[in-house]
């Protein structure tokens, strides 16, 4: 019955002859490991087709959804990190396999007559694979892909005459946007794989026509593809997959938690990205273009003409190889080319290793990537405007950058400029306080420490050093009762309502009450100069007359206080005429949003993924007592 059915099928399709010709291809001189590269490439491409289809089923190409959908695949969907990891690393494995395949073909002279056409088909396949890599790099729409691909499409501009039009067609407009993604995706998942399949079929067909160019001398008796060579091919494919899986799970071995391909922060044309580099296999070209010979208008030579010439020489190899000397030339040329590529790649890596600003940019990029992942993971999800707004509106991310740009010329944050760089004190001396923990008990304790008060971290600036506050702290504070002073510090600090002290402020309500009473009773002479709320007795008002040029202690360090202060520190509620700080809001140096980001960052008021809900009050805490 079964045989009758198969006979019928064979009669109608001739499948037996086809399977037979596929499996029983003659391998002259026996199976060898050096023949496996072609098969591993077919395997790698098959894996890309499979994983690519499944990624496609979850990917959404538009500038507000590309990063977001990849984020969802990577971090929310079961198996997503593995799937994306296989696609990502198999693409890189393919480049290496291509080089190995080409090496074997050229060294063994397998490109010579009658196999010239097949060699050319192979070169076409090489270019398609490079095209697939280039287009795929952009699709996650993260900072890395965005900026690296921008460089690639700008290289198109160097092509004479048609360059600008070509670039506009590829980008889908003057600027990167929705159509850049739809076009790159159409190329990556549509045209290029279709071309690839067509040329692979042609490649294998022509290969079968001429058979294997066996390596002399024959080591063994002839054999068949099935099963000797197929077993070697299968083992090689298994090894390739094992390497890819290792690369995916490698971070786990080194104790990191992320698995698979990296996903950077979402693309943002307004955010500097000095960590932009092409994928490693294009690094040589990147390094090549740094050469002075290709400066300015001559860029086209390095970016288009020379790579074009190299490709031309490769295409001519089968013709040059007709002569014995020609074959030698080809082999030498190939090795020279590869050596050049390796040297350029190493130089690119070495140069970046030595650049501290590049290393800082990479660290920052990883930090942003990690942060946006946490923000996107919040129950509130990603807004319809896209994940890029998550980072733009995040105090934790923007605060340090704004601090560096607008505050660090005078202030410090924990000794650095906000982003972790310690400025050279001779070039950029610290002339104003260190704002790490501003308003906190710790910070205020330092302020009231006679030894610290006139240090650069507090009131060490020339004008302040001789001011009333420093005198007060140095002369009078040492005489105060320690416990009372602590209560006053707790009370002033409670005004800030810092998220980090929410807990403490609750537990110490009684101490804070005591501190407030001390302040208001004017035993401790803060209200002689500073404004503080309380029963506005005649005595108190009179004492506070001097308060026009001193910061108001009402809500000191709280969000509204800090917003008003940054808006105009010269307001009579703050430093008045004595002010030396820029009025960031009043003078329109910064918009309200940026001021709020700085204030929130200084106050430590940002989303903390490790602390999703405010901590429950401890059992000993008074539940009803309130400071005010």
């Amino acid at each position: 019955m079964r045989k009758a059915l198969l006979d019928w099928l064979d009669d109608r399709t001739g499948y037996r002859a086809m399977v037979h010709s596929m499996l029983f291809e003659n391998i002259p001189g026996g199976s060898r490991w050096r023949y496996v590269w072609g098969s591993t490439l077919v395997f790698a491409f098959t894996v890309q087709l499979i994983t690519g289809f499944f990624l496609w089923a979850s990917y959404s190409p538009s500038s507000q959804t590309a990063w977001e959908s990849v984020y969802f695949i990577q971090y929310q969907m079961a198996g997503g990190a593995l799937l994306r990891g296989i696609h990502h690393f198999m693409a890189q494995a393919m480049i290496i396999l291509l080089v190995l395949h080409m090496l074997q073909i050229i060294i063994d002279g397998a490109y010579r007559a009658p196999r010239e056409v097949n060699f050319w088909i192979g070169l076409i396949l090489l270019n398609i694979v490079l095209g697939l890599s280039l287009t795929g790099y952009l699709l996650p729409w993260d900072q890395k892909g965005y900026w690296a691909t921008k460089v690639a499409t700008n290289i198109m501009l160097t092509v004479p005459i048609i360059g600008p039009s070509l670039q506009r067609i590829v980008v889908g407009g003057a600027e990167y946007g929705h159509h850049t993604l739809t076009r790159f995706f159409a190329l990556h998942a549509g045209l290029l794989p279709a071309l690839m399949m067509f040329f692979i079929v042609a490649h294998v067909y022509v290969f079968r026509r001429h058979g294997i160019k066996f390596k002399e001398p024959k080591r063994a008796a002839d054999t068949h593809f099935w099963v000797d060579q197929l077993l070697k091919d299968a083992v090689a494919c298994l090894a390739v997959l094992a390497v890819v899986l290792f690369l995916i799970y490698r971070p786990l071995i080194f104790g990191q938690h992320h698995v698979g391909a990296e996903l950077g922060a979402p693309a943002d044309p307004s955010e500097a990205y000095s960590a932009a580099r092409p994928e490693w296999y294009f690094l040589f070209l990147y390094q090549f273009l740094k050469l002075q010979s290709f400066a300015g208008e001559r860029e086209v030579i390095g970016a288009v003409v020379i790579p074009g010439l190299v490709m031309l020489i490769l295409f001519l190899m089968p013709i040059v190889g007709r002569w014995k000397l020609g074959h030698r030339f080809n082999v030498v040329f190939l090795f020279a080319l590869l050596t050049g590529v390796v040297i350029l790649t190493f130089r690119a890596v070495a140069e970046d290793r030595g650049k501290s600003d590049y290393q800082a940019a990479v660290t920052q990029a990883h930090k942003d990537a990690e942060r946006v992942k946490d923000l996107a993971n919040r129950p509130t999800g990603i807004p319809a405007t896209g994940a890029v707004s998550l980072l733009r509106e995040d105090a934790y991310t923007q605060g340090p950058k704004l601090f560096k740009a607008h505050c660090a010329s005078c202030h410090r944050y924990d000794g650095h400029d906000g982003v972790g760089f310690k400025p050279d004190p001779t070039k950029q001396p610290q002339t104003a306080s260190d704002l790490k923990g501003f308003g906190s008990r710790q910070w205020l304790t330092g302020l009231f420490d006679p030894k610290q008060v006139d240090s650069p971290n507090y009131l060490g600036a020339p004008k302040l050093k001789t001011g009333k506050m420093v005198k007060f702290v140095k002369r009078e504070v040492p005489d105060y009762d320690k416990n009372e002073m602590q209560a006053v510090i707790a009370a002033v600090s409670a005004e800030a309502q810092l998220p980090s002290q929410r807990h403490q402020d609750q537990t110490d309500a009684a101490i804070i009450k005591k501190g407030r009473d001390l302040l208001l009773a004017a035993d401790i002479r803060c209200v002689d100069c500073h404004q503080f709320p309380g029963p506005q007795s005649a005595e108190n008002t009179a004492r506070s007359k001097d308060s026009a040029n001193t910061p108001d202690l009402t809500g000191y360090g709280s969000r509204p206080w800090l917003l008003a202060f940054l808006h105009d520190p010269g307001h009579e509620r703050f430093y008045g005429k004595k002010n030396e700080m820029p009025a960031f809001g009043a003078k329109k140096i910064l918009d309200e949003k940026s001021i709020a980001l700085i204030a929130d960052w200084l106050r430590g008021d940002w989303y903390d993924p490790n602390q999703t809900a405010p901590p429950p009050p401890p059992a000993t805490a008074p539940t009803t007592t309130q400071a005010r």
Partner: protein
Amino acid sequence: MAEATTHPSPPEDERRNFLKKVLAVTAGLIVVLIPSAAGLIVLLDPLRRKTNKADFLPVTNLDALPDDDLPHPFQVVADRRDAWNLYPAQRIGAVYLRRNKDKVTAVNVVCPHLGCFVDATADGSFKCPCHNSTFQKDGSLIAGSVSPRGLDELEVDQQSLKSGIVKVRFQNFQAGTHLRIPV
């Protein structure tokens, strides 16, 4: 040509060949199955996600609902999660509300047959524009319809009704079956 070069093989070679075949097929299966399995897991991810819990959602004020014992359509507004996005206050569906004095009943507007939006007729009964299923004013099925069940009645919050707000436990149910299975 291939046939000509085959050598007559002794039984030991046969056994070795068999082992090679098993190994080759196994390795071949592994390398194709792993990537395919990774993809399939991702593709099947939606099956793993729980259906949303149905909460009472405010639909309208009681005063905005005519006391005429006839169905009136109202949009239901709620936060909608769509994969990675959370859209606040979106129209996520609609209900027919019918008021008789202090009593309010709600049915989902979706036909349980294949999911079309049913129309309310002048006499208060419902008719599906797609396959002509008809339903009574209370949503029950009129004989001769193709729909497997009556319109899905939705729970109205009696507590908030007393304070003049109509809240409905909004839910969609699987079409095409006589059972009410929440989706």
